[in-house]
């Protein structure tokens, strides 16, 4: 068929108008949802669940936490019970991880030490979360002179080396868990405060906050309903990473003999004792070091997973 004849068939009336049906647009149907809509959090959780490494880390952390809570209750040896006759004994069926230089059961001590290490990590992170979010939120929301003054203070605090603060405070208040926590919390919130402030400054300019203001929503409601939920993901990610930071600092200080004091123990304190025995009885260092490293690893990997799942910058 030539082009001309094809044109002819199309226009010749072989195809009549009544062969066509007007379909139109069904407005109700086009608005119908095909599947339930998912919120930001559901989407993030779905991404997180798909991340096998992160879920494994989460499982490991839950296991470690459960062991810290229940193992000392079930395990037959107490963390401060001494077996002078068999000091420094390696792992046996009786004492799974062996004994230390004072004949104390390392398996029992690991979970007691874990309680201390994890408590410091979690409490420290929560306190610095609270201070950081409040401080950054107030500074960012009110802006102007308040913001200027508050950020100058942060700038000064950031310059203070935190390890020195911790050491000085522990000299001042005496060594132990309280002074350690206090000192760690004093400087650690600045990073989060800066982060929250930057985020709030940005969100404050957004249209929906303006709309809320125009509609006469009170400040506290804007902060709690709009600003905090929208910075939540960054806050959660930051906090997950700060827990291992606290555990690390505690371990370093206890290792130097400035943190947790006997009879209480922590992973850092145990590693410190183990290091002195390492040449002949490496198990005394290896088990606490492993507990510490595995926990740190799990927190870091979980933090990575959370960031991949929830960080707005990485989600595209």
């Amino acid at each position, binding site marked *: 068929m030539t082009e001309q004849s094809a044109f002819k068939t199309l226009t010749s009336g072989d195809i009549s108008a009544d062969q066509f049906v007007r379909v139109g647009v069904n407005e109700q149907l086009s608005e119908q949802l095909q599947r339930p809509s998912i919120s930001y959090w559901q989407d993030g959780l779905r991404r997180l669940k798909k991340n096998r490494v992160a879920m494994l880390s989460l499982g490991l952390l839950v296991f470690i936490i459960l062991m810290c809570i229940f193992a000392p209750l079930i395990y037959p040896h107490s963390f401060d019970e001494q077996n002078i006759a068999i000091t420094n004994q390696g792992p046996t069926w009786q004492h799974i991880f062996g004994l230390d230089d004072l004949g104390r059961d390392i398996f029992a001590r690991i979970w007691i030490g874990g309680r201390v290490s994890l408590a410091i990590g979690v409490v420290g992170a929560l306190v610095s979360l609270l201070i950081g979010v409040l401080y950054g939120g107030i500074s960012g929301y009110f802006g102007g002179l308040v913001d200027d003054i508050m950020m100058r203070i942060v700038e*000064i605090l950031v310059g203070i080396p935190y*390890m020195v603060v911790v050491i000085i405070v522990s*000299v*001042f208040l005496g060594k132990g868990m309280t002074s350690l926590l206090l000192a760690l919390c004093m400087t650690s919130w600045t990073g989060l405060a800066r982060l929250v402030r930057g985020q709030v400054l940005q969100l404050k300019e957004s249209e929906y906050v303006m709309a809320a203001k125009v509609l006469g929503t009170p400040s506290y409601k804007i902060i709690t309903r709009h600003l905090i939920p929208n910075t939540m993901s960054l806050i959660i990610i930051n906090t997950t990473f700060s827990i291992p930071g606290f555990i*690390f600092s505690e371990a370093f200080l206890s290792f130097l003999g*400035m943190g947790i004091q006997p009879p209480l123990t922590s992973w850092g304190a145990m590693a410190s004792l183990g*290091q002195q025995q390492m040449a002949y009885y490496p198990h005394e260092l290896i088990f606490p070091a492993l507990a510490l490293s595995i926990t740190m690893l799990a927190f870091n990997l979980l933090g990575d997973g959370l960031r991949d799942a929830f960080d707005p910058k990485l989600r595209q």
Partner: protein
Amino acid sequence: MFKYILKKVGYLVVTLWIILTATFFMMYSMPGDATQSSMKVLPEAVAENLKAKWGLDKPVGEQYVIYLQNLAKGELGESYTTPGLTANTIIEERFPASLQLGLQAVVLGLVLGILLGILAALHRGRWIDFLTIFIAILGVSIPSFVFAALLQKYAAGGYFPIVGWAVSGSSIADQFKYTALPTLSAAIGGIATYSRFMRSSVLDVLNNDYILLAKSKGLSRFQIIRRHVMRNAITPIITIVAPQIAGVVTGSFVIERMFSIPGLGRYYVDSVNGRDYPMILATTVFFSFIFIFCMVVMDVLYAIVDPRVRKGIIEGKKER
């Protein structure tokens, strides 16, 4: 630019003043003073002289002024537990070892970290990438004292001594022998952080249009990496070097103890445990100064290296 540097130095002075004032009053309020511990061995007259010399018989305000005056003259204080020993002497004696260890650790961390990071990003998904990620994750999860202990147990003993430090002026071979393991232990955290940071930084840069342009212009792969990727990817690393220096300082407290290195970090810890207050004060001030100074230098350096940051400062944009 000059104004910016001035502002930063202003912060340095204020921060340092706060640290030293807070530390001074905390140390002052501690029970007991030098003469009480020395009194047992010292005759009455000597104890009185010591009190007069340190101004211990004066009210606290005056003591503080005396301290500031001495500090202005560059005198950091005198030990309580070893009368006659000044903090200046200790710093002169002890700091070189700490500085050497710290510098070597930072340099090693930077060189290895940057190299690994670039290689990993350029060969994404290959074995070198996985190796880098592996090192980066292990490096942030294993404390340096565990790493140091493992090195002492399994790497030292043969060619490398388990503990000790080369005296200044010894041969290069000796220096290497004694400093290799401590440097590696102190650098592991840095290697991990830098390589990870560098990897994502390079991956970011590779996605840019100017890399595509460079490719389509027909530049060689080497040229692209050297002129376009490296230059843009490496500058942000300056922002994380400053906090890392803090890590090296704190790491040195531990590493110096483990390897019996006669550095200032070890002396600091010893003076804290020995409750030698003037020495604690002096070393705190000194360490804080070094730390804040590094932060300021890094901030200024970043502004010099990165034109975008410099422009922001000159236009007076608020820093975030």
